[in-house]
């Protein structure tokens, strides 16, 4: 009797019409079509942005039009199938890694439960192995003998509109964070499979606005925001004034200065959006205190590279801008700010795209004399490497008690952690700038860090629910240290993280703020001739900068 009721309960609600979850699959994955509805897809790129990108030298973004994924007709070009298959062939010939990734997967499943999108949705097509299979099945059908002979029996399938739609759905439910790759015994970089899927989709005009608009802005004015030089300069000037009013120390920064020793490049979000701008204030204070001979650039005014989320041609073009500016200004090397995917581009692709940067010198800290051999080829070092080295040599005075309002934990931003191995420097800095900080559980940090859930251009509000699902594994680990250790600050070294984790905390863990590590450095930094402003702490008592660089005065 009771069991019958339970079955009825299941039938009435649990097996109702549900998209990614809620119903037990009764069909093979190949026969389960994707359904687009408001909230489960990012908006397509605006026609004029695609037209602009297509008009640029060396770039190809065909089929600009007004379309929407939730309409049946995607207005694909007539020969779209041929274009996709030709594009796949070109890429298989050009990228040996892709050919290997297509051939060598043994479907062991080690990656299956490692993806934050799978863990948050329970959708099997978000298992990295199956996401790759979306492409691999087409590869098998058209490019392998077994597939040509046996088709579906050999795991092959024809390239259809349904398959294309599935590619769009799931290549934009992957943040290319590469956590799955850590566990793959064959070293398959599933992020590169996603990159190929997105490249192929762009060949027929299928892309999202939140990636292509910043990318076109970056190509046009040098940064994602589309800030023109005077605006970019004004924003940095404004932050420098803020640092002065808080610390009493005048900041002497310069723009586009030829002959400076160092070119400093950071994500433009750091000079425009909270909480990143406090991180930028941290950079300004640090460089002022050590007297670094450096310049900002209004031309290379963006560390981020949305080309990485688009195609290799655009990635190369946007990356080249940074080096062209370094050459024009005649600097010795580049220091990069707290950015995520900029470092993946620098560390993994720059050398073969635009490098080696022979016209620059191997970075050498003018303060400590340390030569950064690790950046011998790219000539670009991370602000955390640079700062940790300053601390190691006792070249800056830090007072951790100035961060006593902060109980921090540290989120390893995917790209710096997994794509460049920056694991210990930010931790070393934290050890010296805050009174106390704690680690999240070990299977959620360092190489195994969980993504913020909104990387690779998925930080757009129309897919907020999807982002919250994908960010669950990260937020869940943060909740643990909040409950156990009263953590109130999630620190990180990535501008996208600073934006996305703020929203993620807003849903999962309200009350936990997000900051860059350099903000905490700026808070703790003891500057020469400083005269720190007074403010009111949470209890209403007057004290010096009770909220560090965030203090309202």
């Amino acid at each position, binding site marked *: 009797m009771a069991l019958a009721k339970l079955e009825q309960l299941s039938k009435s609600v*649990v097996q109702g019409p549900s998209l990614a*979850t*809620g119903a037990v699959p009764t069909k093979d994955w190949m026969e389960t079509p994707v359904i687009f509805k408001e909230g489960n897809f990012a908006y397509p790129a605006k026609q004029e942005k695609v037209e602009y990108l297509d008009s640029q030298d060396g770039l190809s973004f065909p089929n600009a039009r007004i379309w929407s994924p939730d309409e049946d007709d995607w207005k694909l070009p007539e020969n779209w199938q041929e274009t996709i298959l030709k594009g796949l062939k070109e890429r298989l010939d050009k990228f040996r890694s892709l050919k290997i990734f297509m051939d060598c997967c043994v479907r062991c499943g080690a990656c299956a439960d490692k993806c934050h999108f799978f*863990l948050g949705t*329970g959708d*099997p097509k978000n298992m990295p192995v199956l996401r790759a299979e979306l492409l691999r099945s087409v590869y098998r059908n058209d490019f392998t003998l077994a597939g040509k002979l046996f088709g579906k029996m050999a795991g092959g399938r024809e390239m259809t509109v349904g398959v294309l739609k599935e590619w769009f759905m799931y290549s934009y439910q992957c943040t290319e964070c590469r956590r799955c790759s850590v566990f793959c015994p064959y070293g398959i970089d599933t992020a590169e499979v996603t990159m190929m899927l997105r490249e192929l989709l762009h060949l027929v005009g299928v892309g999202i606005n939140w990636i292509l608009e910043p990318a076109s802005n970056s190509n046009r004015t040098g940064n994602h925001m589309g800030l023109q030089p005077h605006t970019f300069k004004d924003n940095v000037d404004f932050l420098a004034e803020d640092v002065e009013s808080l610390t009493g120390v005048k900041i002497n920064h310069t723009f586009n200065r030829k002959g400076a020793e160092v070119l400093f490049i950071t994500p433009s979000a750091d000079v*425009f959006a909270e909480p990143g701008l406090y991180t930028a204030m941290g950079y300004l204070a640090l460089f002022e205190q050590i007297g670094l001979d450096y310049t900002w650039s209004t031309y290379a005014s963006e560390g981020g590279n949305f080309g990485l989320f688009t195609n290799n041609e655009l990635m190369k073009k946007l990356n080249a801008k940074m080096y062209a500016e370094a050459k024009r200004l005649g600097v010795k090397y580049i220091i990069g700010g707290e950015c995520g995917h900029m470092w993946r581009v620098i560390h993994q692709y720059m050398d073969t795209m635009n490098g080696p940067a022979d016209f620059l010198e191997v970075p050498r800290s003018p303060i400590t004399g340390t030569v950064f051999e690790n950046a011998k080829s790219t000539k670009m070092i991370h602000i955390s490497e640079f700062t940790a080295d300053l601390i190691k040599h006792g070249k800056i005075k830090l007072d951790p008690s100035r961060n006593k309002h902060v109980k921090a934990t540290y989120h390893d931003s995917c790209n710096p952690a997994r794509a460049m191995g920056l694991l210990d420097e930010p931790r070393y800095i934290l050890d010296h700038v805050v009174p106390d900080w704690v680690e999240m559980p070990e299977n959620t940090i360092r190489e195994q860090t969980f993504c913020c859930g909104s990387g690779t251009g998925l930080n757009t*509000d129309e897919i907020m629910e999807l982002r919250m*699902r994908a960010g669950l594994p990260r937020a869940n680990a943060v909740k643990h240290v909040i409950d156990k250790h009263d953590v109130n600050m999630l620190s990180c070294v990535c501008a996208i993280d600073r934006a996305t984790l703020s929203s993620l905390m807003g849903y999962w863990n309200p009350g936990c703020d997000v900051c860059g590590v350099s903000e905490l450095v700026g808070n703790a930094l003891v500057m020469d001739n400083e005269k720190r402003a007074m403010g009111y702490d949470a209890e209403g008592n007057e004290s010096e900068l009770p909220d560090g660089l965030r203090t309202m005065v």
Partner: protein
Amino acid sequence: MDLAEAFRNYEDKVVDQWVDYTLSSYKSSTFFKKGPDKFSNPVGGNTREALGKLFKLLTRGADPKEFVGPLDQIMRIRSIQEFSASEAVAPIHAVKHITREILAKDSERKQFIADLYDFEFAVDMAVLAAFDLYMQCREQLYKVRIKEIKTGTIILTDSKCPSNLLNKDKGDPVQIQV
């Protein structure tokens, strides 16, 4: 032997079946049911932890206000997944049926089915609390979205920065406030 003893005796079994039923609502639930800890398996781990705590509260006549903690742990997750409101809340009900079924199979204890009124009323209270939490989570989600739009983390596109004013979009007259 009484109902309390029957609950204690079958607590693990009821909770196991309750967790299994709840996780079966996911398309690919094998890992969620088996995954070792709540950090590598947040949905499965939190569901198991929350339902375990909730069962204790339901069977011990706890104040319904205490249900909110474990219910939040589970509803915060289900509220942003692709469930309808009823699908999100439904598994909370299931414990009534599971408990009856298990007791019915035990000839010594099936007499206690008649005493389940208080327990089932507590489950009803939990279901109502779960629905409140579902709504609170949805509202919070939209607030987060609105905050993102208002505070400028959306600034990458549709930016209101001065240089964008120069960028005349089709049909969008540039308005400069004085």
